[in-house]
Every structure is written in C-alpha cells, then in structure tokens.
C-alpha cells in the first residue's frame, strides 16, 4: 500500500495496467513491481522446480522471483518493467492460475527431488531420455514460454566511442562523471535504471545537507548540460571485452505505451572506451533459514527502496532482520514514514547500533529460524538466547550484507579477492586493463568515501589520458559506518532456500559436497545453483559459504564460479539486430539483373550474388524444357550469359607480368597484349586456390578474372604474395569487379560481327 508524502512517483498521473488479467492502477514513475506491491499483490510467481509461491525479493535487475511475460516477451523482471498505460503482464510457470497451481504438488515430493535427482533417476532405459523424460521434465519445470511466432519487435544496434565510460550513476559514478565531464573528457554514463542516481533514489541519506536524490538530480542536470557528456539511462553494460570494448543493452521502447514503428524495443551497443570506471554498486544478499522464500520476505534494501522511491510499504507490519548496520536504516525509514515496525532483529549479540532510543522494538542476538503463511508471510519463528517464539508480521526485510557488483571486472578471466571486513569479494585491481572500480562495487560501503573514490578515479583517468584534472569540492554524506558480522545460514526445521530462481536449498549444496562435487564449479552444475536468468546474483555468495563450510575450507579458498557476460539476459534479437530477412546478408546484382528478373528467370544465390537459373518462355512448363532449349542454342547457334559476377582485378605496373608468373602455375609474361589466357593459381601448400582467365591489355596492364565465390580470397592472396613474398615487385592492383560488366558469348555461329550487338548494347 502507498505511504503518503513518500516516493518520487507522480501521483497526478495514474496509469492503468493489468496482471494476470486483473486491472490495477499505478502512477508514472512506478515499475510493475512497485505498482503490484502498492496494489497488495504479494504473490507474483511460481518457482522453477517446486512451483512454490514466490513474491518480490528485490527492486533491481537481479530480481529472482518476479518474472513475467509482457508483449509476448517472457522472463522479464517486473522490477525493470516501467509502468505504461495498458501494460498487460502475465505470471509464469503456473496452471491454471498463480494462486491455484496444479504442479505445486511437486513441492510435496521435494524429499525425492533434491540435487542430482534427474541424473540418478532417469538413467534407464537410456532411449527414454530424449523421447519421454526430458520433454516431461521440461514441461513441468521452467520459466516463461517463448511465443511460437517470429519476434516482430524492432531491435537496433549501435556503436559509440569515448574517453571514459562510467558504469553506474550512483554517488561514486556521478562524481567520476562530474570530474571527467568538467575536465572536458568525452564521457558516457550508462546506468540500467530509468532514473539515474543509484541508491541515492532509494535512501534518506543527505549529501551536503541536501536529500540524496536531489543532490543527484543537480549533478545530473549539470552533466546533461555538458556537450561532452552523454547520459544513457536504461542501459545495462553487459560485458567487458578486449581492447576497451564494452557491450551494453539499452531498453529503448519497452516503457512506451505505443512505440512507433521506428522506435526499437532495445538497442545493443558496442562501446569502445579508452578508460572505464565501474561504479555498479552492490547487491544485497539474504540469510538462508527455513522457508525463507515466502512472499513478503524481501531484501531490506528493496523494502527501503519501495518505501523511499515509490512510496510503497511492503507490509502493514514489517520485521527487519540483519547481521549488519545497514539493516537498521530500513527500520528507521519505515518508522519515520509511519509504517509499523514489528521488530528490529539483529543477529549480533551487542551491536553498537542498538544503543540509544528507538521508535521500534529491538532484539539483539536474535535469529529467524522459520516462517509461516501459505501464499504470503504471516509470522516468523525467532530465536534469541532466551528461547524461541513467534513474531507476527506480514513482511520481513532481511539483510545478510552486500555483494559488490564486480561482475564486469571478472569478464577477462580474473577472480575477485576476499575482504573479511565486509564479508564479501571485491575486484582484483587491474583485472580489466583500463578499468578502475569504485564505490560499493569496490567494497566501499559509506557514501562519503564513495564520492571521494569516484572523484579520485576520474582524476587518475584524466592523467592517463593526458588531460588536465579539475578541482572539485568533495561532498559530505551523513551515513555512518558499516559493520557486519557474517551470517549465511540459520539451522531450522524445513528447507532453507539459497537460489530462489532455480530452487536450490542449503541441503542441496551440502549434498553436492557430500557426493564429492566439492569444487564450486562442480557444485554449481550438480545443483544448478546460480544458473537461471539472475545467474546467482542473489545467492551465489551464500551457496559458496555453505559449500566452504561443508567442505571444511574457507570462503577465499573455495573461490567463486566464473563470471561471464552478459551481466543481464540479452535477447539474441538485440545482439543480431538488423540481421533478419534481407538484413541477413548484402545482395549483389549483375548488370542485367532487372531485365533478367523482368523475364521471369528464377534467381539463385551464388555467394552474395544473384544469378538466373534459366529463362523460361511461354509454353514451357518445367525447368528442363527451358534448359534443353538454352543448351541447344549454345550447341547449334549462339548463347549469351551475364558473367559479371566473376571477380575482376586490374593489375598494373612494370613488374605486373612477373607478378602473374609468380602467382599462376603457368606463364603470363609471354602473353601478347590484346590476348587472353587461362591460369591456375595454387595456395602455399600446393592445393588449387582458383582458376580463371587473365587478359593483357598492355605490356604493363592486365585484367584478371576469378571465380565468383573466390574473388575476395584471390584479392587477399594477391595482397599477401605482394606484401610478404615479393615486396620488391613494382606492381599495383585493385578490384574492378563492379566496374566491368562481363558477358560470355558462345556457340558455333559466333563471329566478330555477331558479337557486335552485344558490345553496343546499353549497360
């Protein structure tokens, strides 16, 4: 439900939308997720394997549960879908309805369906796998369904170049962009959110005495006014590649109610940047406990974001639980906004934050050990040193700490390094050449330090680029220090979930370790931990901690799985934009193409060229009748064929003849001007490369023809021979394939005079 006087939504602009056919109303600025939450829709999806009821977990692109189908595109995260008039979203992986789902029976069989179940069960008979088992399993498990028809959405691709690419427009990224922008560098700022500012839009932090979101808006206004800065909202940088190349997906038309025919849904960018500053922030993680997947159990930062940015209370009575200071912000913000805080639970025995008066009940040294509520949270079982009891609430905001969003820094094969004080992995410095990592992505958890780090990294980049730095005043933020005491799993009765998206439990990971899938990569493949669209962004860290514990190793020794692009799912249609139908390959047409087509000749492809198969005449009903007639004409009279598709290379220079003697197996230096000779060309290993005729127009001037398909190959070969094997030859050549038309005239009745009409024909 909405909270008065909170949020950056525009309450004067209501927007109608539907979910599973039911109509709702949200506001401009809402995402589908915030609007659903505001409308009390807590159940948003069914899980992959056990069809468990699931609700929103996050407010960002890492969302594991709220996957919906809209505009026939499956697996869209409700947290990333901006609300537009008439948005019709459908939940997935349920039948007949989200609330009453037949396959939720799977959950009752859960004891038999653990990790490795398929591998152990469907071994025999072998032939049944492809025909029976696999189709059945695929139907039961799964995400959204692809439409059977072609994707008719419009996609685009584009290229950009810059001095500095800033990934993420939170406090660190904005400071970096500001410094580089003021210094005159060519800057691109890419942020996956529609509204830039990062966590500043979701927090009540003050910067230089100003609310964080307003400070960000001011910086963004200055950046937008700089001609050398390009702001790219709704753009997720998906991969870091060699040579400062980055892939990025821009969501261009998804949020528009009626995108015009020219507006693409998405655009895939290839950005080449001399330097990159990664300021992608961090993703909050949960704590695994029994039945921790009920709708209403959410990341504490998400509860805060829904409150502060969208003015939505995630519950009527919210319990907050964490192992770090950050969780307390959620309780404070909720209480300040008038939302009932059932309790602030801190797993630490004596956190400094617990001191002083609070507007809500505080329990320290407390853990959540269980939950109840069939389609949504109704209460928690909590345990403190004094014992176990129930706590009534309809929402739990949980924080197990933050995982720096360092994915891009690992795309060139480096692994991150463990940092004990924040209980998280941070990027290895220099992992991607030309990239520096700042802010929370680098493990820096307080805003003032993030701001300073962003500014400093930009100054360093300017120095690298040979540009003068600029002086900026470093702003001060009012958030305090970040203290954490790791807590990954709480023992209890029932399944404790790690990967919501792939239905992996703590027990599954422990079982993998027991069955000797002890390497993190083996565990991942055995349990499917971290494999779904979120790629374990929410859960890999905790799974790793469980594995480390089960195998008696530390977390740093256990290590992470490999981070690979793309950071978020990218539609093939976006990467291959423009490659459909006629866009698949260029078309090359002969001189006589139009008259040929007008005569009804069926065209066949020869490489990129189009050539006629035969020229049908009235009365001919099969291809053979036409071909027989054409062959007869050549045998008994005259036939003409357009052979302009042959490659043609103009070769000139005093050493042209010697050069041809070198590349052909036969001699061309003896050819007289005005004559033509057939030649055969070999590769370095003696295999035939190509054959064709070459005409000598003058002592130092030849025109070579190649076969249609090998024209480019021969050109490349000639260049290699000239540059690598005989650079001393004074010879030059150039492709003239499209400058000359060519006609073959053949048959017993061909004479010089009968060729004349062909020579005089207009081309």
């Amino acid at each position, binding site marked *: 439900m909405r909270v008065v006087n909170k949020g950056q939504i525009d309450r004067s602009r209501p927007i109608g939308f539907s979910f599973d056919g039911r109509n709702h109303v949200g506001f401009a600025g809402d995402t589908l997720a915030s609007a659903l939450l505001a409308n009390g829709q807590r159940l948003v999806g069914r899980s992959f394997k056990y069809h468990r009821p699931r609700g929103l977990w996050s407010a960002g692109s890492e969302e594991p549960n709220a996957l919906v189908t809209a505009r026939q595109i499956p697996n869209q995260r409700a947290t990333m879908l901006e609300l537009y008039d008439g948005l019709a979203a459908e939940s997935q992986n349920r039948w007949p309805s989200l609330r009453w789902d037949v396959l939720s029976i799977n959950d009752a069989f859960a004891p038999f369906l653990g990790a490795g179940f398929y591998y152990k069960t469907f071994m025999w008979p072998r032939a049944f796998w492809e025909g029976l088992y696999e189709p059945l399993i695929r139907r039961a498990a799964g995400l959204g369904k692809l439409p059977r028809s072609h994707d008719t959405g419009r996609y685009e691709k584009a290229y950009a170049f810059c001095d500095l690419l800033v990934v993420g427009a939170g406090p660190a990224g904005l400071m970096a962009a500001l410094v580089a922008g003021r210094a005159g560098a060519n800057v691109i700022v890419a942020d996956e959110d529609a509204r830039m500012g990062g966590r500043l839009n979701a927090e009540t932090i003050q910067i230089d005495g100003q609310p964080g979101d307003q400070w960000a808006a001011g910086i963004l206004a200055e950046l937008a006014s700089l001609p050398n800065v390009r702001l790219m909202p709704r753009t997720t940088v998906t991969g870091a590649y060699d*040579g400062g190349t980055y892939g990025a997906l821009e969501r261009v038309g998804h949020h528009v109610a009626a995108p015009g025919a020219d507006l693409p849904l998405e655009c895939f960018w290839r950005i080449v940047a001399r330097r990159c500053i990664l300021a992608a922030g961090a993703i909050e993680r949960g704590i695994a406990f029994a039945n921790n997947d009920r709708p209403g159990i959410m990341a504490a930062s998400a509860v805060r974001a829904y409150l502060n940015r969208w003015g939505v209370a995630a519950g009527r009575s919210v319990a907050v639980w964490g192992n770090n200071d950050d969780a307390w912000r959620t309780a404070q913000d909720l209480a300040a906004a008038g939302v009932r805080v059932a309790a602030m639970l801190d797993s630490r025995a004596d956190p400094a934050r617990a001191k002083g008066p609070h507007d809500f009940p505080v329990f320290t040294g407390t853990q959540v050990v269980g939950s109840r509520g069939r389609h949504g949270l109704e209460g928690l079982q909590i345990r403190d040193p004094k014992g176990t009891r129930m706590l009534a609430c309809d929402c739990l905001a949980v924080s197990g700490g933050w995982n720096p969003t360092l994915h891009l820094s690992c795309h*060139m094969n480096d692994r991150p390094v463990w940092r004990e004080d924040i209980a998280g992995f941070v990027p290895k410095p220099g992992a991607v050449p030309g990239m520096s990592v700042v802010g929370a992505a680098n493990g820096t958890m307080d805003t003032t330090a993030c701001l300073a780090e962003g500014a400093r990294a930009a100054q360093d980049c300017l120095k690298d680029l040979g540009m003068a730095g600029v002086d900026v005043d470093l702003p001060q933020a009012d958030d305090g220090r970040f203290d954490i005491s790791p807590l990954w799993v709480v023992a209890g009765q029932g399944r404790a979930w790690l990967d919501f998206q792939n239905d992996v439990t703590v027990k599954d990971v422990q079982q993998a370790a027991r069955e000797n899938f002890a390497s993190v990569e083996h565990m991942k493949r055995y349990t499917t931990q971290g494999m779904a669209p979120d790629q374990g962004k929410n859960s890999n860290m905790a799974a790793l901690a469980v594995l480390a514990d089960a195998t008696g190793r530390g977390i740093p020794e256990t290590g992470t799985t490999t981070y690979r692009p793309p950071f978020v799912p990218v539609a093939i249609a976006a990467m291959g934009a423009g490659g459909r139908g006629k866009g698949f390959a260029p078309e090359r047409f002969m001189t006589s193409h139009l008259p040929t087509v007008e005569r009804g000749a069926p065209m066949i492809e020869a490489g990129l060229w189009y050539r006629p198969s035969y020229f049908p005449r009235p009365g001919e009903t099969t291809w053979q009748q036409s071909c027989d007639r054409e062959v007869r004409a050549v045998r008994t009279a005259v036939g003409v064929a357009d052979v302009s598709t042959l490659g043609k290379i103009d070769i000139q220079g005093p050493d042209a003849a010697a050069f041809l003697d070198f590349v052909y197996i036969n001699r061309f230096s003896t050819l007289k001007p005005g004559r033509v000779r057939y030649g055969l060309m070999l590769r*370095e290993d003696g295999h035939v490369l190509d054959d064709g005729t070459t005409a000598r127009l003058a002592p130092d001037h030849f025109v070579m023809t190649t076969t249609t398909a090998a024209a480019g190959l021969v050109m490349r070969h000639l260049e290699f021979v000239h540059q690598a094997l005989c650079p001393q030859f004074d010879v030059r050549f150039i492709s003239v394939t499209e400058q000359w038309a060519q006609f073959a005239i053949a048959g017993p009745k061909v004479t010089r005079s009968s060729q004349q009409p062909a020579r005089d024909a207009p081309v």
Partner: protein
Amino acid sequence: MRLSCPLCGPRDRREFYYYGSDDYLNRPHSDPQADASSGGWSDAWEDYLHLRDNPAGRLRDLWYHEGGCGAWLAVTRDTSTHQVFDVALVVDLKGKAGS
C-alpha cells in the same frame, strides 16, 4: 578485441581477417638443383607448411586488414591475456629483409 593498424589506427577486430602464425613469412628458399633430386620437398618445406607452435603466451601472427586498407599485419600478442604488444606492416618486415 581491437587492433591498431599502422595505417588506419585502432579498429575493431571484425575489420580484420585472421591468417595464423607468421610462419608464412619465412618461405623456404627454393634450390632448383636440390629440388630436382628431392622432388622439391625438404624438411624446411614440411615445417613451413605443417608445423605450428601453439603457445600459451607470446605469439606473432598474421592479420589482413580486409575491411580497411588491405595491409597485411604481423601482430605480436599474448594468447592468454589477449594483450597486443606490437603491430607491424608485413611489407616493412619483408621489405627490410629482402633489400
């Protein structure tokens, strides 16, 4: 991946055609008299045509700027890190050696 063509500047990898190691720059010398007895075959030719190193590390290989100026390039790079150390025009290398 990007390569810096000495004539055109830094360009996307897709402008270039890849040919393999630079062994093809070292075509064995042909000796007509020796060739007559061996049928033109020698160990040097065997190496030149068939034997290639496959190092995890520094390698010099040949690239053709097909979507650009048509220059053949000798690129020295690290096959495990993809770092490019040097890009030279083949014609410069061979011109110097030949002259």
